[in-house]
């Protein structure tokens, strides 16, 4: 049986585009996808000196809300995430592990001084969610520019890469009993 995926909008209500997001993820992952509530205290994950939230702390808090040990949980936050050595991260996942988290903070066009564009935000968030879930299912970064698992450290790179797995990554996932 396929591993269930639980989606949690961590810092408040689900956005109006949550259905579009779930559909986008479901197009790639045949697994059962359910949204759940995960009331994580984000304030406790805030590092005042950086005015950013520690991705590892958010992820650890999120995992406490995973409904069953066989499932994967993906948290979506609006706050800015970081890991200690990096200035920021779009998301963080446990490689071949139970959880992942994605931040929409730097996926918004407004962050770059551009007019807001919900369509672009949804597309980027879908890609980031699939990317981090890919890590949670054991995938590493892929050299194929079109693959959703291609590494991206800028939003431009997120836009350039595709929203689906390449043949190689798909076959790796199938080897892990993905579908």
């Amino acid at each position: 049986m396929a591993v269930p995926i639980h989606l949690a909008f961590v810092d408040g209500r689900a956005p109006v585009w949550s259905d579009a997001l779930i559909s986008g993820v479901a197009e790639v992952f045949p697994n059962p996808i359910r949204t759940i509530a995960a009331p994580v205290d984000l304030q406790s994950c805030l590092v005042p000196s950086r005015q950013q939230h520690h991705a590892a702390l958010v992820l650890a808090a999120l995992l406490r809300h995973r409904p069953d040990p066989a499932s994967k949980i993906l948290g979506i936050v609006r706050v800015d995430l970081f890991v200690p050595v990096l200035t920021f991260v779009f998301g963080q996942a446990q490689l071949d592990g139970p959880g992942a988290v994605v931040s929409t903070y730097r996926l918004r066009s407004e962050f770059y001084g551009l007019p807001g564009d919900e369509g672009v935000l949804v597309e980027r968030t879908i890609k980031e969610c699939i990317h981090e879930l890919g890590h949670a299912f054991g995938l590493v970064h892929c050299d194929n520019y079109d693959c959703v698992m291609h590494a991206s450290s800028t939003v431009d790179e997120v836009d350039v890469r595709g929203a689906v797995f390449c043949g190689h990554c798909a076959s790796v996932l199938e080897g892990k009993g993905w579908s």
Partner: protein
Amino acid sequence: MTDRRILIVDDELSVRGSLEEWFREDGFQVETAEDGLAAIRAMERGPYDIVLLDLKMPGMDGIAVQKRVREIDPRATIIILTAYASVETAVEALKLGAFDYVTKPVDPDELSNLVRNALNARTLAEENVRLKETVSELTQAAPILAVSAKMEHVLELVRTVAETDSSVVIRGESGTGKELIARAIHAQSRRRYFPLVAVNAGSIPETLLESELFGHEKGAYTGAQYRRKGKIELANGGTLFLDEIGDITPKMQIDLLRVLETHRFTRLGGNQEIESDFRLVCATHRNLEKLVEEEQFREDLFYRINVFNIQVPPLRERPEDVLPLARFFIEKYARAMGKPVKAVAPEAEAVLLAYRWPGNVRELENAVERAMVAGRGPALEARDLPVSALNGDADEPLARSLAALEKEHIARVLSDCEGNVTRAAKVLDIDRATLYNKLKRYGLRR
């Protein structure tokens, strides 16, 4: 993405953890170390492609760790990571061979590019090593056959001196293969990727030799229509092989001494000083010490060039090399002439072994080549060997001097060539200048 290995050295657990996660997602095999000592232990278990090293750690200083890491694996690419932006430390780390330097926290894009560049540089370095190995194989000097202990000793000397940058004088009779020895020294030296430039000082008149060695500017003399680089300039980075050094004129000796002392010179007709980093290997068949005594060769130049001495023994002093060399030449000419000759007939072996080979390996090669032209069977026969090897020289008393044999041989060849020095030199396989010298020495007339 890769099967590359990375070692993360940082005293902060959170930094190690986040970097470990980040690089694992990138497909790296990641190891972490919390301090310098753990890093060194990990390096000993290595190897690692990249070492991400925090400079400020308790205990062992990061710079000291960097030095030790390089000692253990000089090929590991080190990227310095520090929370303190100190230009001095960065410069020191870079001087010690770190690939780059970043300050924590680092932008993910910057770290990605840095690691990508480091891997690219490493790939290029690995390719460079592979290419050098390939070039090295392709540029191997011609093999030198050495069955005898005497030639084994010569090859041992070649291996020893090749590692140094010292000047070498190779001595030996004509035809003993002095140039081959020079090429072997060059091919085994660190200069092997640069040219070996050979000049035969004995075959070039003094005025031309000057231009040949130093080059000239346009208009330096009548007929100098273009600027031309000299052999010394062309040998930059490599080896200059100066054959028949004992034959150069006193003026050329002074000029050469100056270049050897400063490695600087000017082209004929030029003002600009040119620098050339070359290693000098000389050869001569003459007794340089005697020439110094007779004041025909400058003592200071003699000591400058005579740092290392290799004496190539004549073929008659190493008879165990004769048949292997003959077989080598048979194989060479059989291939070139498309003849199925594969062996030496027993009678021919006896002739080859009995002859004293005054012209040394060159004469042997010549004899084999001529016999191969004449021969028709699958083996080299005694009747096909040149007259000099068959005419009973072997029965001559052993007390006969080499000079007497050489004189006789030259006289016969010259006579066969109707006194034509150019043709005789070609048959003897020596240059005209050497033949003229020999004619003069033996009092022979054309």
